[in-house]
């Protein structure tokens, strides 16, 4: 097996997604089949190859460090589910189990 339930559970936690037991079962089976398929990459010897993370030949893109017009704060945050005094409001972080 390429992946088991414990690893899926651990990975889902890294991805901050809560899974039901049912989801955990069927995702594990499906991901295992997908990983078994992609395992065909292991038949290739790639040690001498450079990775392609993107295809353009360009490297760093620079611009003048100049101040330009930007969105007003009220516009930028208007889609937030919870606001207070023009700030995002989130649950208490300190003093609770993470």
């Amino acid at each position, binding site marked *: 097996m390429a*992946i088991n339930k414990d*690893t*899926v559970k651990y*990975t*889902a*936690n*890294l*991805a*901050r*997604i*809560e*899974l039901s037991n049912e*989801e955990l079962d069927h*995702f594990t089976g*499906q*991901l295992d*089949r*997908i990983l078994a*398929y*992609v395992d*065909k*990459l*292991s038949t*290739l010897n*790639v040690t001498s*190859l*450079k*990775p*392609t*993370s*993107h*295809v*353009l030949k*360009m490297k760093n*893109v620079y*611009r003048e460090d100049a101040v330009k017009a930007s*969105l007003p704060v009220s*516009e*930028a*945050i*208007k*889609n*937030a*589910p*919870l606001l207070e005094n023009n700030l*995002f409001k*989130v*649950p*208490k*972080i300190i003093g*609770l*189990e*993470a």
Partner: protein
Amino acid sequence: MMELNTLTAHNLTELLKKGDISPLDICNSIINRIEKTEKSLAALAHFDKEKALERCGNLSKTAEKGELWGIPIFIKDNICVKDELTTCSSKILKGFKPPYNATVIDKLTGLDAILMGKTNMDEFAFGSSTETSCYGPTRNPWDLERIPGGSSGGSAAAVAGDEAIFALGSDTGGSIRQPAGVCGVVGLKPTYGRVSRYGLIAFASSLDQIGPITKDVEDAAILLKAISGHDEMDSTSADIPVSDYLAGMKKSIKGLKIGVPKEYFIEGMDKEVKNSIKAAIEKLEKLGAVCEDTSLPHTEYAVSVYYLVATAEASSNLARFDGVQYGLRADNIKSMMDMYKKTRKEGFGDEAKRRIILGTFALSSGYYDAYYSKALKVRTLIKTDFDKAFQKFDAIVTPTSPTAAFKIGEKISDPLTMYLSDIFTISANLAGIPGISIPCGFTKNNLPIGLQILGKPFDEETILRIAYNYEQNTDWHKRKPDIK
């Protein structure tokens, strides 16, 4: 006179210039069609008739008219339109109205096109069938029991079903070309960097491109020109001049060298698809192109590379949906972690969860080298295959998909089988090259078949030229579905 909604943008522009029709006539024709067929197709995610009419009324009446003056356009639901619902067909972006326009939207409205609404899609563009949308599946106008392809299935179905004149889609692994292919319309994925991605809600940033879905090749050229060009808001946007596609595509294809890769004609592929592609190749030869067999030897690894690279990038891009800045936040939460996990549990559908977990796994400590890093190296091999082929050929032709449209529900429970339906379109995204799908035949059940033409980087002109010459000498694009 033919119904205006059935016409192309270039037809309509002619009629508008002559003064035979007004933008309002076109708009009303579209609205009438939507009221008749949208119940069957479910191609649209957000459409507000009054707003569309209002935009039409606000159109500038001055002598200075943009090239797309009065032409209505639909936009895939992952492209930001200021103050309009933009949800990627996902529950997690419920109610999201961007505070800014994508660059392509500013370009279109700058040319006086009329924004009509947003089209349905697979959630976050994760899919090949438009079945993973939180709004439910879109249906193929040629057979309502079948998928319209995906992920830009709403755009393709709206164009094929004459609810739209043309539309924008996005293509990360075939999401413009495959739906265009199975809906019998034209879909073009530009070279990576040709069209600005600013305001396109990211799926896989090294693969995504916005592109046109249209009723004919001329409209594809017009729309591509309208949205192309350098944009300083997208650091991966290429500072390369945009060609005059309309003039370029009308040249003859005599003497053009076209490669036919043997890896795209695999054992067990659909016979009707195979025969249609073979016939299309013969047609291209009759028109003067020189078609020769070639090989892209690493084709069989493309799906594997793609589903590691694309999901890894997606897992990173979708980390921003955390219940803080926009969209959904779950109720009854106890802590920060609880908020993240519950919001993402409730907000993402199955396929999004699956891809985020797969991508996170491929990037995670202990697996990074074996999966993500390896996939990037094999991506180099796939790109090199094309570099070599294009030393000899001006373009490459293949089927767009291994089969015509499959049935709704047929592949949704088996992700791997679904992933394999992208087998012929994925490589172009990995290599960053442009590709177009045009209609090249029908199955005996009257389902469209797509021909894919792939070109050199930034040589959209040549693939449009081949597509245009083929189209002008065939009638496939003139057929219309009878929506029941």
